[in-house]
């Protein structure tokens, strides 16, 4: 196998098999599972107390109500006495006694508390509908008259595409995206810088550099970290989809998502596709610069502070995006959307706000990819000098010494 790939595999396996990575990847799912679990448990445990029983001497009438309000009714309670007992024991919210003669439908609710607004509306709607059917039957109308009485008023909602949900989708997408880039960057900048810094000046690096070129080793190292990042993104996408499917089985969440379908679709659309590519390439270029700063520490013990330069740079880019969130077409925003290190924040912001053409996106991507290539090549060339020299002097002296090590 190619030596670059051997290094990449070693780096990749070393990272993904570590507990810190496993916890990093699993923690959001664990938190999500806990919150869903708590939600589900509290929903099921409290549901009986919020439900009512329905009692009627006319089984058909009772069944119709239960069918229409299945979630709100505890169907197993069939008698008024049993229902009263459950109410007394605080196991039921109350019970409804339904009765109907030839002319009138009656519903009597028994409880120690007043009915919730929602439940009252549902009971009234059921009683009104049943009474209506009874009235129609008693009026002995012709089918034409019945038809004409069945006509309902029409109500339509027409909302312009650029307003409302779409705008909200943009705002949500923007915040999710910048936070996603920022969090992934912070994590991998630290991981990479520490990984490289911990090798600084160690003699095992001399053994490795007597086996393969430093540039190949550096590229292998970066490829390994890319693999780790990619793994995390794939796990999040697959796991997120899995959780989405599970959540859709929970009625409340399903209702929430269905009610906001266009918003959810808008956010997902903004998150995937070209923006995800910008996120990935952004993380890569910051990873490379982190590796560089990791190689610049004075000695392996300084590894924890190695990521600082890359983290500061990403913080600057992160905070710079804030003022332009609602003004992404401004000149500065347009310029920064082409500048590597900044473009990963600014171009997705412009894409979300629909003010970047295909050509502009392509050009920004091209600059980013070319910068990644050039940076990797250059650091690969000076990497040996940076890693092998261990002068405990100032940052700039170390940089100068590292750059001239091979001269």
């Amino acid at each position: 196998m190619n030596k670059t790939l051997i290094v990449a595999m070693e780096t990749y396996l070393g990272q993904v098999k570590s507990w810190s990575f496993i916890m990093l990847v699993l923690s959001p799912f664990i938190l999500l599972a806990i919150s869903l679990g708590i939600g589900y448990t509290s929903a099921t445990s409290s549901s009986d107390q919020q439900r009512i029983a329905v009692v009627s001497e006319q089984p058909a009438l009772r069944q119709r109500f239960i069918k229409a309000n299945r979630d709100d009714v505890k169907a197993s309670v069939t008698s008024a006495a049993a229902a009263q007992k459950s109410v007394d024991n605080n196991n039921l919210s109350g019970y409804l006694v339904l009765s109907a003669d030839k002319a009138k439908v009656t519903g009597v609710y028994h409880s120690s508390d007043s009915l919730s607004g929602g439940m009252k509306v549902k009971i009234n709607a059921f009683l009104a509908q049943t009474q209506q059917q009874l009235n129609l039957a008693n009026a002995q109308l012709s089918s034409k008259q019945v038809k004409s009485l069945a006509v309902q008023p029409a109500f339509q909602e027409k909302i312009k595409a650029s307003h409302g949900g779409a705008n909200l989708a943009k705002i949500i997408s923007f915040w999710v995206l910048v936070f996603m880039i920022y969090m992934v960057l912070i994590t991998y900048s630290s991981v990479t810088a520490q990984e490289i810094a911990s090798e600084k000046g160690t003699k095992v690096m001399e053994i490795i550099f007597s086996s393969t070129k430093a540039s190949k080793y550096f590229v292998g190292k970066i490829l390994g970290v890319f693999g780790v990042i990619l793994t995390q993104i794939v796990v999040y996408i697959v796991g997120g989809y899995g959780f989405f499917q599970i959540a859709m089985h929970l009625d409340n969440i399903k209702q929430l998502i269905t009610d906001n379908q266009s918003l959810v679709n808008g956010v997902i659309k903004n998150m995937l596709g070209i923006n995800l590519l910008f996120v990935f390439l952004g993380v890569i270029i910051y990873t490379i610069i982190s590796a560089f700063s990791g190689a610049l520490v004075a000695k392996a013990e300084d590894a924890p502070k190695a990521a600082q330069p890359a983290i500061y740079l990403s913080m600057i880019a992160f905070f710079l995006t804030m003022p332009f969130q609602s003004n992404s077409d401004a000149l500065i925003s347009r310029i920064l959307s082409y500048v590597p290190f900044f473009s990963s924040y600014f171009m997705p912001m412009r894409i979300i706000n629909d003010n970047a053409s295909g050509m502009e996106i392509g050009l920004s991507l091209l600059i980013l990819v070319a910068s990644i290539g050039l940076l990797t090549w250059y650091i690969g060339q000076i990497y040996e000098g940076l890693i092998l020299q261990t002068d405990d002097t100032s940052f700039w002296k170390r940089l100068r010494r590292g750059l001239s090590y091979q001269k």
Partner: protein
Amino acid sequence: MLSIKHLRKQFGSVKALDDVSFDVPDNQITGLIGQNGSGKSTTFHSILNFLKYDGEIRWNGQPIKEADFDSIGYLPEERSLMPKLTIEQQIIYLARLKSKPAKEIRPQIDGWLEKFAVKGKKTDKIKDLSKGNQQKVQLIVTLIHHPRLIILDEPFSGLDPVNADLLKKAILEARDQGAAIIFSSHDMANVEAVCDRLVMLRTGDVVLNGTISEVRDQFGKSEIYVTTDWTEDQLKQLPHVIKVQNIRGNRFLLQIDDPSKGPEVFEKLTDGKYIEEFSQQPPTLDEIFRMKAGIQHE
């Protein structure tokens, strides 16, 4: 054969190597000696292309390229491995970087661990091994891919005599298999015991270069070991004797001003009678080292 010609290296105003030339032939062990800072590690780093240098370093007549890395085994001065890996993972990873497939190396690991008497299982993590055992694993890593050029920077440092013997045995075995070996050491006894050739550096200059006997003979047989009933004062009265050192009991080391006068000293000392020991020798490597390094003989 490794051939070094007119090697020069300067760090800022400090001259690290100045016109260094010597050969490391196949099937031979060359000792590179010198005080700290004399340029030994810089020489090794130049051979390994860690540094840009002036001059010429050739391996089998060609400049050393990446393809030659697979036939080099290098043991750095300080020991360091990857602490989170197991012994097996560490050996396989570094062997794979020498283009040896894992399936070829894996079956050999047990044999090498036994050969170097490494205490521990191959599934033990490097960080859980003692310093001595880590050092042995590093030696295995240096040798397991059967390199043709072996560079060992202070391989004996920190090894007890038993483990030093294991290492000597492994070095001699690699030499017998045809490898060209160069190692640096401060322990002249080890150099004398193992090396075929010797190169000494002093502040970047080659001050000694040749086979062990050539180097020692350069200094003439100016030392005589004697075991006699004579007192130190009596021995000092002998002709051509310039210094007498009592080694232990009635064993002495005499230094004479002219090696050719050895027979004359012998005549005077024995007067035709039996003597337990009279051995005229060139200075030991240790003495030569001290002499050349500019340190006064004690």
